[in-house]
């Protein structure tokens, strides 16, 4: 009788016993390994290992290698520490590149954000099926390969065949040197970047707008809020996280932009439209000074990384506030 009770007790614990049986045969010295393998976090790490290896190989290693390269001399034979960075800072051409990159990225992101916000609001007001059609059409600039669409813009700005100038001439306005004069060239590369990037802002804002509960607007309308007050006190605070993350992401991507400037102006006229990536290409690849090119491309990293930390901290805090 007693034996049967013990047997039942053991059967009830069968699952645990069965699962631990293979381990129990291991030597006492295998205890640490056994504990490691049975921890859920260990299993998670093991399962993620292939992905971690891939990210390490394709992202982390090149990034660290670029940092290492940026600290070598031109012939990559000697470690020079921050020498390349100090050299660049004292060079007027590079100081101009910093200014141009900031003008390019900041103005492009500001206009992308404003136009995207406006488009998202207009689209949000379009009912059902028509909204899907318009959304698809407005997303086109973002889904067309950038190099191809930039070539199209290049034709539009071409001094001989420019469609813009043709239209201006029809109305008696003289031609505009789209890519030939400094400020027109800067304007053109920013314009193309805004044309390409605004749909991304639009789609992110549209998703954010759709996630704001309709009842908040109804409550605000009853509380006495007009359209402006609803935008200021409901829409914008509710969208702050999406706004921040989109602007941060766009700022990073725009600072790193290469295709548009490379295809439209190749940094010209007289290096007046160079930005970090195109200047790094010229210095590193075309002029054969790879460490200097690496230093140029890494120049904004600390500032953007610091900005990213602050923005992401704000997002985490607000997410916690609005949850539940």
């Amino acid at each position, binding site marked *: 009788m007693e034996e049967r009770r013990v047997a039942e007790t053991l059967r009830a614990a069968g699952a645990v016993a069965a699962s631990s049986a293979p381990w129990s045969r291991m030597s006492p010295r295998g205890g640490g390994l056994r504990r490691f393998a049975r921890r859920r976090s260990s299993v998670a790490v093991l399962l993620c290992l292939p992905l971690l290896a891939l990210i390490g190989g394709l992202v982390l290693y090149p990034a660290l290698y670029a940092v290492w390269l940026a600290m070598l001399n031109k012939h990559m034979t000697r470690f020079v520490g921050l020498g390349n960075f100090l050299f660049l800072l004292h060079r007027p051409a590079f100081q101009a590149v910093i200014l141009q990159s900031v003008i390019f990225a900041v103005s492009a992101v500001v206009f992308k954000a404003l136009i995207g916000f406006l488009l998202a609001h207009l689209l949000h007001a379009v009912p059902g099926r028509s909204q899907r059609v318009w959304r698809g059409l407005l997303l086109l600039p973002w889904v067309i390969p950038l190099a191809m669409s930039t070539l199209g813009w290049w034709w539009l700005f071409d001094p001989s065949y420019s469609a813009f100038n043709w239209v201006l001439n029809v109305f008696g306005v003289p031609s505009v040197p789209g890519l030939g004069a400094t400020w027109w060239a800067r304007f053109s590369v920013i314009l193309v970047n805004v044309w390409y990037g605004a749909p991304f802002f639009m789609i992110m804002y549209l998703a954010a707008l759709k996630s704001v*509960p309709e*009842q*908040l607007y*109804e*409550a*605000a*309308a*009853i*509380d*006495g*809020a*007009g359209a402006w*007050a609803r935008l200021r*006190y*409901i829409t914008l*605070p*509710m969208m*702050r996280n999406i706004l921040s993350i989109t602007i941060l992401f766009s700022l990073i991507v725009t600072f790193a932009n290469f295709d548009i400037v490379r295809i439209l102006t190749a940094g010209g006229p007289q290096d007046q439209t160079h930005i970090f990536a195109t200047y790094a290409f010229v210095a590193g690849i075309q002029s054969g000074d790879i460490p200097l090119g690496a230093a140029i491309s890494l120049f904004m990293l600390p500032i953007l990384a610091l900005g990213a930390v602050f923005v992401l901290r704000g997002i985490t805090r*607000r997410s*916690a*506030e*609005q*949850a*539940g």
Partner: protein
Amino acid sequence: MAEVSIRKAVKSYEAGVQAVKSIDLEIADREFVVLVVPSGCGKSTTLRMVAGLEDITGGEIWIGGDLVNDIPPRDRDIAMVFQNYALYPHMSVFDNMAFGLKLRRFPREEIRKRVDEAARILDITALLGRKPRALSGGQRQRVAMGRAIVRHPKVFLFDEPLSNLDAQLRVQMRTEIKKVHQSVRTTTVYVTHDQVEAMTLADRVVVMNQGRIEQVGPPQMLYHHPATRFVAGFIGSPAMNFLPCRLERMGACLGVRLSETVLLAVPASRTARYEPCLGRPMVLGLRPEHLTDPREPARPDAARLDVAVDVVEPMGMETLVHFVIGATPACARVDPATPAVPGGVLALHADMGQMHLIEDAAGSVV
């Protein structure tokens, strides 16, 4: 404070669906009116029409003597409490309550005074600095009410405010709402699908069905004198028993024939009223609480009814007994000490003084 007048109000949607079909309702100043209907019968639409959140297809809505059909919600001087509270998640409790006053450019001291006063009434003073996420369901509901109170509006609108709360909290908040209305005597329109809420809160209950008003009246009137089968079945829990029957003569009086063997005497006082229904298919309406334990002091109009018990549900203070008469399931509410057992026979007293005779086809109470 103001009276609300809904005149021939209609709400139609593009697909041809008519959610509200020409309703007329006069709500007096300071009155607490509850619109009660099962879900999807147009009660929320009616409330939203009063709020201005839904355009009105036809008819007129008047608030405080003003026609408000084309006036936006913010200019109607109303306050609304939503089912999901609709608190602004990025604002503190204080800011949530003060928002409407800030938009109306009230002086800072006045805002503080009003919010403090409302917080005191609702017992949420300690919560003023918190964000909505840090509040329980009941506390959020209080804040939503506070947001309405501080505005001192002409009319309060409540859209199923207790639906998201658990049963215990719902009872507690129901009492709170009643208390608030007693201290802040503002005209209130309250929408719910819960007839218990309607009965306990309302000065007058409006029962709606399929976009139309079935009956309007004080809770006790709706309970004792329902105008239609729908109202009779909707008000009261458990619901009224509806038993197909036929009226027959029983000497000088009338009797209700429920089956071959069951004939219940109708009180003599109702003979004249029911006589035209003789021989026609009718429905006997009798609430479970009027099918009682025979050991209670017998009422003058009580008729004995023997039933075969199907299910017994002890509720503590009472016991529900389920059985079948003819082919119709029915329920009685008896004393917990009644020896009712499933499969056994139980003798009940039908209080025919509380009976309702309903036209089978039209559904109207005779």
